[in-house]
């Protein structure tokens, strides 16, 4: 079995498995984010639970971090190997004749998403880790009330940050438009080539990033 994951097909399968995991995570993350539009209290409760529950923090979070890092590292490894496999480039190559822009540029959409993740970690994740585990304040409170919603609104005051988030999520949509069905094909499933799942993949790939965009833009224009 260890030989399997060293083979070209094994690496594809590993990419697909981590992709499925990350695509599932996006749904959870978006669900929590969306509550911030409808209920400040619910968003605070959920954020506090996610931020302090030991199972989430010490079991799910490390798995998620591993999934993210693995997907990126494997993506780069595969890209480098593929570049080596090409050798000399064509003087004239008409890629658009037989494949989508999204499928040919996964490395670039992936790089934009990576740059976004760095920004996102600096914005939210690193400050959270600092407050909770370095300063040791697990209360989630600031000036007598939950701090999560106010921090969220504060971050999206900056038009530059909202702009960066919107661009990153458009690239995420393009990444998913190829990645969703591609993951099924890599797993050897015929489902990715069926009309119904292709349609579902398109809907998922547009709805999920659009949801994140709506949350960022909403808080930019509705801060109090």
């Amino acid at each position, binding site marked *: 079995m260890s030989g399997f994951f060293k083979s070209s097909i094994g690496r594809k399968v590993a990419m697909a498995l981590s992709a499925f995991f990350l695509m599932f995570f996006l749904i959870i993350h978006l669900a929590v984010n969306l509550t911030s539009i409808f209920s400040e209290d619910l968003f605070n409760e959920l954020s506090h639970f996610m931020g302090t529950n030991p199972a989430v923090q010490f079991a799910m979070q490390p798995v998620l971090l591993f999934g993210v890092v693995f997907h990126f590292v494997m993506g780069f490894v595969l890209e480098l190997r593929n570049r080596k*496999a090409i050798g000399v480039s064509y003087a004239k190559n008409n890629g658009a004749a037989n494949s989508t822009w999204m499928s040919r540029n996964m490395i670039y959409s992936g790089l934009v998403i990576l740059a976004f993740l760095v920004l996102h970690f600096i914005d939210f994740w690193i400050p959270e880790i600092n407050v909770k585990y370095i300063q040791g304040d697990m209360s989630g409170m600031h000036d007598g009330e939950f701090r999560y919603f106010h921090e969220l609104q504060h971050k999206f005051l900056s038009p530059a940050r909202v702009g960066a988030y919107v661009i990153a999520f458009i690239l995420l949509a393009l990444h998913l438009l190829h990645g969703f069905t591609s993951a099924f094909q890599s797993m050897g499933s015929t489902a990715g080539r069926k009309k119904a799942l292709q349609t579902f993949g398109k809907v998922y790939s547009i709805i999920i990033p659009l949801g994140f965009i709506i949350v960022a833009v909403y808080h930019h224009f509705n801060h109090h």
Partner: protein
Amino acid sequence: MSGKGMNLTLKIWRQKDAQSKGKMETYNVTDISEHMSFLEMMDVLNEQLIASGDEPVAFDHDCREGICGMCSLYINGEAHGPDRGITTCQLHMRMFNDGDTIYIEPWRAAAFPVIKDLVVDRTSFERIQQAGGYISVNTSGNTQDANALPISKHAADEAMDAATCIGCGACVATCKNSSAMLFVGAKVSQYALLPQGQVEAADRVKNMVAQMDLEGFGNCTNTGACEIECPKGISLENIARMNRELMKASIK
């Protein structure tokens, strides 16, 4: 036809031998009939070069009726040129217009090194086949008739579709990753779908994939370009089947 044919500018990769550094050269051909095949147009160019004492352009060809898998050529950025479901020998000059500039390059892949001009070494495909693209049958004289084994029409059709791969290498040439998975997927599938292939199924897929990786072909990223450019219409389903076969073989 005289005087009514097309005048074309050709940009062709010239490389003396495997060791030399090649480059694109420009040639002009005149009065090319729209009824010619692309290879006949190449023949006209070569006659012209020979007459003027120059080295003709080396390119692979054999049957010239679309079944041997010998002809190749990356024409205007596409394997076997702009038409679909054909090899270069079946590409007609009517697909081009008078005054066109046509780029003609060899298959590009580290596993397909250039031998001369437009001729590449595709023996890596043969080594993959030798690693498991066969069934072992005792030919002692009382071999069982293959037709004695019941095979569903559906499986027989799918196996036949996979077996139509002529091993031309257009899939590799087209792939942005120089992946050979459509070729290997077809060769694995044609046996995986039939009872005769079951006995050696696990070893076959493991060995063929191992040889494919060893030859330096890239990793498939499911762009689907190979399926579009394949002259025989080999389906991506064969790659999915190969992935399943390898997973099945690896957990045994």
